[in-house]
């Protein structure tokens, strides 16, 4: 696995330069709670080659709102909705309520909840 670090400001520009529909296959989005903020990871795999997985990641503080990748990759809205429900991260255009109801335990995967 090859990990490439980017930042919330350059992230959309990096994605537009890197992503090519005929070469790369988008896997999913992942989020980690590091204690001081979130680490958001995006995984891509290459078609027709052995074990080639690339991960773009950046660090973002708890209250910041990050841009959604759905205009570029239309099938990413489900993964982003799951992260919003599980971690309480703020993503433009994605609302809460996909997996958890209003009367259940909120943001279960954050530390200390």
């Amino acid at each position, binding site marked *: 696995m090859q990990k490439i670090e980017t930042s919330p400001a350059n992230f959309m520009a990096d994605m537009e330069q890197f992503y090519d529909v005929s070469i790369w296959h988008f896997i*999913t989005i992942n989020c980690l709670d590091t204690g001081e903020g979130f680490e958001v990871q995006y995984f891509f*795999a290459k078609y*027709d080659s*052995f074990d080639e997985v690339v991960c773009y990641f950046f660090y973002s503080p708890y209250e910041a709102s990050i841009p959604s990748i759905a205009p570029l990759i*239309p*099938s990413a809205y*489900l993964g982003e909705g799951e992260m919003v429900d599980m971690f309480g991260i703020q993503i433009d255009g994605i609302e809460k309520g*996909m997996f958890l109801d209003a009367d259940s335990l909120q943001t279960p995967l954050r530390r200390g909840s």
Partner: protein
Amino acid sequence: MRKSISIPLGSQHIALLEPVRFRFETQNETITNVEADVGYVHRGVERACTSHFEFKQVPTVVARVCGLCAITHSLSYTLAVEQIISVEISSRAQYLRTLMVELDRLHSHLLCLAHTAENAGFEALFMQIMGERELIMGLQEQITGNRVQFDFVTIGGVNRDIDSQIAKTILDGLETFEPRLEEIRELFENNWSLSLKYKGVGAISKENAAKLNALGPLARAAGLRTDVRAEQSVLPYSEIGFEMVVAQGGDIYARNHVRLLEMHQSIKMVRNILEALPEGEILSKVRGKPEGEALIRLEAPRGELFYYVKGNKSTTLERMRIKTPTFSGIPAMVEIFKGQEYGDVPAILASFDPCMSCTAK
């Protein structure tokens, strides 16, 4: 001006195996817009595996996320953890794991074909295919001791071994099964209610499948060459002769065709595994605790399964992320529905083979 009517396909429906809710906007029975709601069976598996269970108990927990692809879930987690903990796996254990994965693919595809036949109105074929499926599950019971949830894979290898008598039973069982598979395939290609009815229904083009990152038999039926068994090197697929099956058209007929040909491939691979099974131990001792991060991709019967595991030198993991194949396939399914007739919806849903317990973990 035409009015548009909104029809729900509610969370309980007679054609669904698991709860999922759609809301269709239709004009005179042609669908124009779809809203999907998944997450009815959310059980919080990711949080349970990082707080309540230790890392050695997680293979049995994670196998219970789905009933049909149980061995693939516990095998993916085990392969991911074995990368960040120091243990050597013997090649006999890897071959036995691959044997179970291919038998699992057989019975899962049989279930999907039976469900498709039932939605076409051909209930007699549904009963026949379920009878064939019992043969495969009997073979799995001989190997692991249980029909559905196997508890066969553990960190360090596998739990039970096969001897020459069990190997002979498997080969005899496949000898009885293969001519019946040929009969089923003839029915799916020539019978009027299964072939003419399904040509051109629920089609997706190759460009849309690539744009929406579709996977599994859905993408291979549209012409997209994507199969994780050709893109990973952990399990010995290149040694037992794997070939990718691709069809054209992307409609329900093409998907059934891909599944039937994949079953032929699986039978051939099981025979090759039993012939080339190496000698050795099946379980190695595990020492230490996991540290670092690792990821793995495997081919479940419905597509690509992805696990990400992070440990920090304690007995409970820090983070575990599961991405199931149906979760990636839902945007493609929503796109397929647009432009179809409302009466075809249960058949399209059954051919797509959704596993909602996997989607909403």
